[in-house]
């Protein structure tokens, strides 16, 4: 039987969570912004390269409304997730601080679960102007990439890395 895991995608509103999932699952992108209400789930079957070789994985992706806050709501939707993709927007003032706030909730509610970090909208920001985000990795480990839902840059890599971490530590 194919393993299935719940993966939460978290970040402030309009940073590109929905767009990253759409790029990853459907390979497409839309410029217009449609706020997500509550949570939209997507089931995506993929093959993950692990240190034990390739392994099939059903990723149940939870695209969680960015404007939700409060511990109760977070708890309700995060429960049982095997890992999280934390998304930030490179065009905002301090994307790393915003991501750190989401990562702190995951670290508290889902201790030991892997996270990866997506600094999205890289197509809009010159490499020299991007923050390095090392503080996120220092606190939570995982992988951090500048990526773009628009161009697809680094998008599969982030989901694959999270899938591999989840399978390798056997959550």
């Amino acid at each position, binding site marked *: 039987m194919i393993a*299935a*895991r*719940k993966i939460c995608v978290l970040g402030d*509103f*309009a940073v590109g969570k929905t767009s990253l999932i759409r790029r990853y699952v459907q390979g497409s992108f839309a410029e217009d*912004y*449609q*706020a997500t*209400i*509550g*949570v*939209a*789930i*997507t*089931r995506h079957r993929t093959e993950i390269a692990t240190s034990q070789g390739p392994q099939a994985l*059903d990723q*149940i992706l939870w695209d969680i*409304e*960015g*404007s939700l806050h409060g511990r109760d709501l977070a708890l*309700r*939707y995060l*429960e*049982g*997730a*095997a890992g999280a993709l934390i998304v930030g927007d490179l065009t*905002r*003032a301090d994307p790393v601080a915003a991501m750190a706030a989401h990562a702190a909730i995951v670290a508290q509610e889902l201790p030991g679960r892997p996270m990866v970090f997506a600094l999205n909208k890289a197509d809009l920001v*010159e*490499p*020299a*102007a991007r923050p390095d985000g090392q503080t996120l990795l220092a606190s939570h480990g995982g992988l951090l990439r500048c990526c773009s839902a628009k161009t697809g840059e680094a998008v599969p890599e982030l989901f694959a890395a999270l899938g591999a971490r989840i399978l390798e530590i056997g959550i």
Partner: protein
Amino acid sequence: MAEPASRCSGPVGARDLPAGALDRLIATGRFGLIQLDRDLCVQARHGAWLGWLAPGAQAIQALPMLLGYEPALRAIAAGQRPSLLLPRLAWPGGPLGERVIALEVLPAGDGAGLLLWLQDASELAALEQQVVQQRNELSLAEAALVAARAAAEAAHAAKSAFLANLSHDLKSPLQVILGNAALLADEGALAAAERPQFLQDIAASGQFLLAMISDLLEVAALESGRLELSEEPVDLALVLERSLALARGLPGAAERQLACRLPSVRPWLLADPIRLQRILANLLSNAIKFTTPGGLIDVAQQAEAAGPLVVTVSDDGCGIDPARQVRLFEPFQTPAAGGGSGLGLHAARGLAELHQGSLTIRSEPGVGTVACLTLPAERRTEPPP
């Protein structure tokens, strides 16, 4: 379906419900009810939009939104946890279609399993969507305004600092010129052997002033859109050679190696030769400023016979740190070291863009800097007969 409905006790509050009430509720099409047994398998489902759910199916597999909640479901069935509510849940592309539902998990009672109570919340969610969307868009617009204001304030501060520096920068060479001129005019003040040095200092200060004022005038003309190119067929290699010859006369040039690599076929282009030379002069004087003595500066023109014309000026100097690279082309950004008006690169890019070209800079601290001037292929032209 009357049986399961009448068995529903506490959770749905059905103890006093008239017979058939739950049926009528579900018949509205706005609700659904799924009964799970102790093993979390589907026992029965009620509701128009749940027909696809096969009795006997493993709930976690049939309803992927339940994945991860197994411990919670078992705790609810065992009476150790009251319920679970997921108020807004969509599964686009799944059997619920575009529906947004509220999903509540309740104990069936007497350890008999679970009830999943589903409510079609699409209408409410659509209203919420509009409100949230507007609120989000407003707060994005507000953030953009705040950022634009900060940028405007920073630009204003840079301009003020620039004007303060400028008066100082104009004053000191003028003082050299006036002071030296006075000394030279005074017959007895200087020994004959000293005079050439004082004259050279006057010339250097004059050159500095001239460059600075040219930058200022050019930027003023660029900003006001008044600057017009005077275009003619130009031998690009000749412009490069002339710029290099002038650069070799700059202070510090003698201690650096200036190399030039040109293709064997000399391309001609339609351009303003004076402005082109100003761009190159700027790139070369920066390269000289930011390399240490002994450094290597390389001017190259790409050999392609068609397509855009690309000229690079590379150096192995100290490079530019990433934070400053971002602002390099903004006006009034005085270079960290080496002086200059802080307008040169801004003007150079403006001039490149007037030619429908571009000017970019790649730099790595400690490795060096490459400036790249690209002029569009449409500017290629035949050499005059």
